[in-house]
């Protein structure tokens, strides 16, 4: 139960932050990516603002355990690899096309209108297909 309460608080803060920051406005996200057009640096402020409390939180995990028990995530893996790069390129292309990524796509469902539902449904379909795509990719050209 405690886990669920904290998950709701975390999700609520995330959703509120995405809304207030303007990151569910696709024109602001595409504006950030549009370096040759009317460039909009807002996203950098959002990223910087989000990284600050997270960096403090990571520092705080050292030598401690999560509040509700269990363990903190393992240290970040240093391995890069093909999937990280290829996946990020595909993601970036979709992000640029619609100006939406997974977090804001959920936060904007209630007020973005039908285009946001179309994007969200297609994203779920992509996530459903991803394990098969990944398996085919690994057989065709073994990663790492």
């Amino acid at each position, binding site marked *: 139960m405690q886990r669920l309460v904290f998950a709701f608080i975390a999700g609520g803060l995330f959703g509120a932050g995405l809304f207030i*920051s303007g990151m569910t406005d696709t024109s602001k996200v595409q504006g950030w990516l549009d370096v040759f057009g009317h460039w909009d640096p807002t996203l950098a402020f959002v*990223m910087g603002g989000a990284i600050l409390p997270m960096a403090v939180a990571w520092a705080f995990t050292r030598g401690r355990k999560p509040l509700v028990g269990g363990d903190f995530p393992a240290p970040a893996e240093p391995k890069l690899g093909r999937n990280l790069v290829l996946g990020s390129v*595909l993601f970036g*292309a979709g992000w*640029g096309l619609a100006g939406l990524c997974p977090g804001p796509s959920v936060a904007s469902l209630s007020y973005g209108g039908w285009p946001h539902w179309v994007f969200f449904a297609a994203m779920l379909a992509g*996530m459903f297909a991803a394990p098969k795509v990944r398996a085919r990719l690994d057989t065709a050209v073994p990663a790492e």
Partner: protein
Amino acid sequence: MLEMIPVDWVWGLIGGLLIGTGGAVFLLANGRIMGASGIIGGLVDGSGRNSSAERIVFLIGVFLLPILIKPLYRPFETHATTNIAVLVAAGLLVGIGTRIANGCTSGHGVCGISRLSLRGMVATVFYIMAGGLTVVLFRHILGVI
């Protein structure tokens, strides 16, 4: 001096701090990395079955809070395209790409960079570059978006 700072940047910073605080709560309380694509993807492909309740409740929070605070806020438009082909292609690319890369803007970007993860930084460089090139190609050259 202060009035020279665009109000959008200030809202961006405040919103960003809230996003990071959400990530900090998820990490320090539940021991989890707040990555939207991982939380959603684990539900969709079944890999996160053991923690599905936590994932669903998190997503309800993300969905619900904008509804609650929207009446307090200035009028808001999302300016999303109404081109269905673009929306579907973009959604598929975001869904497949984030799952193959194992993270998106929140997981690799916010949570990864803040722990100085090389993977997070490399992913962020590549998705921003790909996004930039896509906007240049589809907006300025092809005129589709």
